[in-house]
């Protein structure tokens, strides 16, 4: 069993390793405006940090559908040298899950999807998609260079 952070995006459930989670922030463009630089959007964070905004919802709605979007939050995660801000619908929660029981996507899905979602957890009728952060970073336009302070993985999750 492993602690995961469960994020809801529209009606879909995604999970990332809890160890990577730095915090959760309210998505409110009036007070904190994302900065666009070289075609990538960054979320300014306290202490001069910033996080690459990774919008999973956009990656899903490219194929035509529109997910309901109410008040949103950012899930701030640290991955190697990068901080990433994943958009999500709710605040999310921490769960314990047996990741060894995760199943791969059906072979119909393209390599890109299979790398991005390396496993699917089945919980009754719910499907929880495990997200590969490196692949997500790549899917939202190549490598990002933050050039600012490195995230401290040991920091407990907090609300910005």
């Amino acid at each position, binding site marked *: 069993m492993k602690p995961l952070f469960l994020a809801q995006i529209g009606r879909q459930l995604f999970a990332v390793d809890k160890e990577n989670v730095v915090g959760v922030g309210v998505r409110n463009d009036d007070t904190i405006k994302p900065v666009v630089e070289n075609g990538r959007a960054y979320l300014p964070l306290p202490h001069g940090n910033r996080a690459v905004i990774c919008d999973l919802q956009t990656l899903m709605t490219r194929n035509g559908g529109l997910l309901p979007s109410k008040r949103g939050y950012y899930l701030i995660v640290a991955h190697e040298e990068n901080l990433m801000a994943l958009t999500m619908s709710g605040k999310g929660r921490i769960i314990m899950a047996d990741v060894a029981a995760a199943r791969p996507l*059906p072979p*119909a899905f*393209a390599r890109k999807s299979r790398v991005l979602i390396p496993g*699917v957890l*089945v919980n009754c009728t719910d499907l929880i998609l495990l997200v590969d952060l490196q692949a997500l970073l790549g899917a939202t336009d190549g490598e990002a260079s933050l050039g600012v302070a490195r995230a401290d993985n040991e920091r407990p999750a907090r609300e910005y």
Partner: protein
Amino acid sequence: MAHERQQAGIRTFFLPLTINGSTGNVVCLFSQSQVVEILGARPVQQIPGSPVYLKGMLLYHDSLLPVINLDDLCNRGGNGRSDRYRQLMVIRTGAVDPVTGEPLKAVVTAGVRVRIAKITGQELATAFVAQEPPPSLRNSGLLRGFFQRQGDSVAVLDLGPVVQGTFSDHWGEANN
């Protein structure tokens, strides 16, 4: 006995399609042995990074099945028409998983209700007349037959490459 069944008719399922370049009614034919179940509308788990024709994934009797929109599959270059559907048809594709060897099923979305008809062996032999398919269908790489039957054009598709994942590479190249 088998002869009597053939006389009574084989149940077939006609899924209406919207095909670019075709003015008449086009339906996709599925045989009774292909169709596992027809489900009502229910949430489909979308998967990021999927091609336009893959609407997501559905948990069906402990199996994860891809959800396919045939209109988007057969009209290459489209931007995805609609995610709305009335029914979901669970089908056997006849293909097997290249890794596990398991038979692969899929779910096909139906924007309008699937029509069910019984076709006798005699009708199969006489009423289906082969005809030239529209270019979008012909170029799909999945067409196995195209026929005229009464007022409908009937397409027979092979979804094996789609569920095996070999079609998505082909699709990606064609759309780049």
